[in-house]
């Protein structure tokens, strides 16, 4: 079957989708967006977390056919998504991330290790600055979940952060640095940095 939906602000079309296929599979294997990770395939690990109509969900548990006409944001589009949010909408009328840009997306942080540029969302930059990335497998899911938390709750308590990230597993067990990163992003957000 064919599925039409919006990925990172741009309309996309997936063809020859098997009816039992997950949104995760469509994103990774048909759209070439491997940022959302495939691990447990049962909603336990959160590494496939994306926003579906703004809501964080495990993309491995959404049937591809269910996203027809709906709006998906993946980690590849997170920087643009966050920028658009900070500008309260799309000023130029040409926002979002094209499939090609999303496929080629690389972290470009403001430190020496990730190159020049400012094409990171605040939460991504905070993860780098706090040293919250170890093997990196859980990072995309955590970024999407953390970004949504800070959108909903700009000043979260530690308990709020733990609750919001309770569906994302990090098997390097770097949770303390991840907590640091979210606290850092929240502090920067409240200071308007």
């Amino acid at each position, binding site marked *: 079957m064919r599925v039409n939906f919006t990925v990172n602000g741009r309309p996309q079309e997936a063809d020859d989708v098997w009816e039992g296929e*997950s949104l995760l599979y469509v994103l990774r294997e048909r759209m070439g967006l491997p940022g959302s990770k495939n691990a447990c*395939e*049962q909603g336990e690990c*959160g590494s496939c977390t994306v926003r579906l109509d703004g809501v*964080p969900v495990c993309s491995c548990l*959404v049937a591809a056919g269910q996203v027809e006409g709906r709006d998906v944001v993946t980690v590849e589009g997170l920087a643009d998504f966050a920028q658009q949010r900070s500008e309260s909408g799309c000023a130029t009328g040409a926002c979002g991330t094209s499939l090609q840009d999303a496929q080629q997306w690389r972290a470009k942080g403001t430190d020496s290790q990730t190159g020049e540029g400012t094409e990171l969302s605040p939460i991504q930059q905070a993860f780098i600055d706090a040293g919250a990335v170890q093997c990196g497998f859980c990072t995309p899911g955590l970024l999407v979940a953390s970004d949504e938390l800070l959108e909903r709750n700009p000043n979260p308590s530690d308990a709020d952060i733990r609750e919001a990230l309770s569906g994302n597993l990090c098997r390097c067990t770097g949770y303390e640095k991840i907590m640091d990163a979210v606290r850092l992003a929240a502090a920067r957000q409240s200071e308007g940095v």
Partner: protein
Amino acid sequence: MDFLRPASWEEALAAKAEHPTAVPIAGGTDVMVEINFDHRRPEYLLDLNRIGDLTEWEVGEESVRLGASVPYTRIMENLRAELPGLALASHTVASPQIRNRGGVGGNLGTASPAGDAHPALLAAGAEVEAESAARGTRLIPIDEFYTGVKRNALQPDELIRAVHVKKADGPQQYSKVGTRNAMVIAVCAFGLALHPETRTVRTGIGSAAPTPVRAKAAEEFLNAALEEGGFWDNGKIITPSVAKQFADLCSAGCNPIDDVRGTASYRRHAVGVMARRTLTWTWESYRGTRRTIEGAA
């Protein structure tokens, strides 16, 4: 496999009548796991996401009509006062990502003895609104809904449209045993609701019998003991011997098995502990409310 995408409830019922083997999918948090792991290859998937009123609820005089697909997140946010037991149970469901998708309709459809909503529904009192194109709507009392391990009273051509849950008329509690707070299938779970209006107590036990069950003998004992001691009127502390007897009868109301999550004897023990604790919590809350009301008068 065929993917059926009804745009309305009527279309969904027609599709289910035409293809009784169709598997309804809403949040997908049960169905997609089975498909991903190749445990299930349904001939038809019946997507209910496009039917908007399944995610709505209405608060009535006596009960809340909760759409089958209202996500657990919405229940926690919006129905804490009306359905405190179910809101507490919703908190214990998996993770935010899962609570954003899953709803009570899916819990009922899957009818796993470990489903988190069941003990809360049993304790509060509820009816499942099932509908078919051929025979229309019927309300199935929650006590008659669970018929076996992952079996329920639905007919092949029926879909769950909503669940009517009695609004709380007194304190309710919910307790669940697992290895951590998030992402846990209950080792066992317990729901308790005080119903001061009828001077009764209702229970719900999860994951400790082939189906979710009420501990009816324990309820009857406690109802009699509370009545006899005039507890509903005098608001005295529950006698420890009464609490213990209630807990023992709740344990006895279980029919658990040994499995990877826990042994039968552990489950029986834990249900007793949860029964005693939830009774204490709810009763203290009831006494506190009584004092407030008396103090104000």
